[in-house]
């Protein structure tokens, strides 16, 4: 169920000049209250310009809920240049994304928080492809200097998604459009390891699924 609330918002603070004005406005409001009372008693005359200007708000309350499995994938040691793919019904398993809300939801994918040891920081070539049917997303993860923090990534290959970078890296929508209430989809992926002797080490990062209202 969706509920929408509207109302006036009370400012938390204003800058100094605004505060002075606010104080004057408050004093004026008290004066106005007195004048209004007299006005009501006498002639109901309240000047239109005396109305207090307020900020209004509107909040749409819905419950947006998402589940993603599996929670963790450990691939172990792989050869340089190797490609690892998710296997339906096998291991490693593809992601399963479910919209548990009663509203349509867009689900976006981003890679974030690369961490690595003994991995060259100046030659990004980690690849993660996330596929869904005929669509394919490829994240090429460049390890940031210091090996911590959002990795820079580019989106390659055939895609229907948007390649705009978010603060946490590129974000793309899971193909197939919005998830309807209760919709569950499999998101396959493919990881291409760098074919370089400078990339020996452990690479860790997080794949982030985020839901947003599609309405």
């Amino acid at each position, binding site marked *: 169920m969706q509920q929408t609330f509207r109302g006036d918002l009370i400012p938390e603070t204003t800058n100094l000049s*605004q505060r002075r004005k606010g104080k004057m406005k408050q004093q004026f409001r008290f004066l106005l209250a007195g004048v209004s009372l007299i006005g009501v008693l006498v002639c109901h005359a309240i000047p239109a310009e005396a109305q207090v200007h307020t900020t209004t708000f509107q909040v749409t309350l819905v419950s*947006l809920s998402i589940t993603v499995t599996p929670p963790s994938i450990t691939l172990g040691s792989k050869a340089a240049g190797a490609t690892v793919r998710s296997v339906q019904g096998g291991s490693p398993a593809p992601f399963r994304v479910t919209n548990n809300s009663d509203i349509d939801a867009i689900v976006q994918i981003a890679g974030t928080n690369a961490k690595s040891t003994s991995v060259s920081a100046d030659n990004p070539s980690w690849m993660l492809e996330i596929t869904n049917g005929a669509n394919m997303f490829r994240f090429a993860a460049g390890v940031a200097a210091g090996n911590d923090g959002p990795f820079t990534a580019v989106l390659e290959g055939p895609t229907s998604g948007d390649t705009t970078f978010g603060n946490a890296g590129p974000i793309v929508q899971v193909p197939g459009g919005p998830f309807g209430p209760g919709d569950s989809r499999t998101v396959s992926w493919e990881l291409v390891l760098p074919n370089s002797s400078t990339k020996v080490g452990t690479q*860790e990062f997080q794949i982030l699924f985020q839901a947003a209202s599609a309405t």
Partner: protein
Amino acid sequence: MVLALPFLFMGAEGVSAGELSTQFVEVTLDQVKIGQSVRLHVPLSITNLGANSTRIKVDAVTPAPFELRDGYEAIPDPSWIRFERDTFTVEPNETALTDVILDVPYDVAYLGKRYQVIVSSRSIDGMVGIGFRSRVLFSIDAVVEY
């Protein structure tokens, strides 16, 4: 030459990606004044419906073009949005709240503008993170009060 590349996705085995829920999906503010700070009427809430406690990180981020509502442009600086706390832990079946505050700089260049910012919330433990991209839409009053 074939080299062994120990490759480990982040996250301990057994840590559930779980399920998160929020009611902070979209908030609209009208006629905010330049130089004004407003505390959003509804706090950002994250409910952990999973079986394990989850650490949540909250950020304000610039929306991608495809995320923009008609008539709104991306916020000039996401730092206009502050949170009472930006990292917290949510236990299973519990809800964590944080206030969201909007600070609009005092600059006449912003008069009459309509901006959108994304409030990004996400679990930061585990290889698979989940979260939300909530919309905050606001219009700035076109008039300066003297």
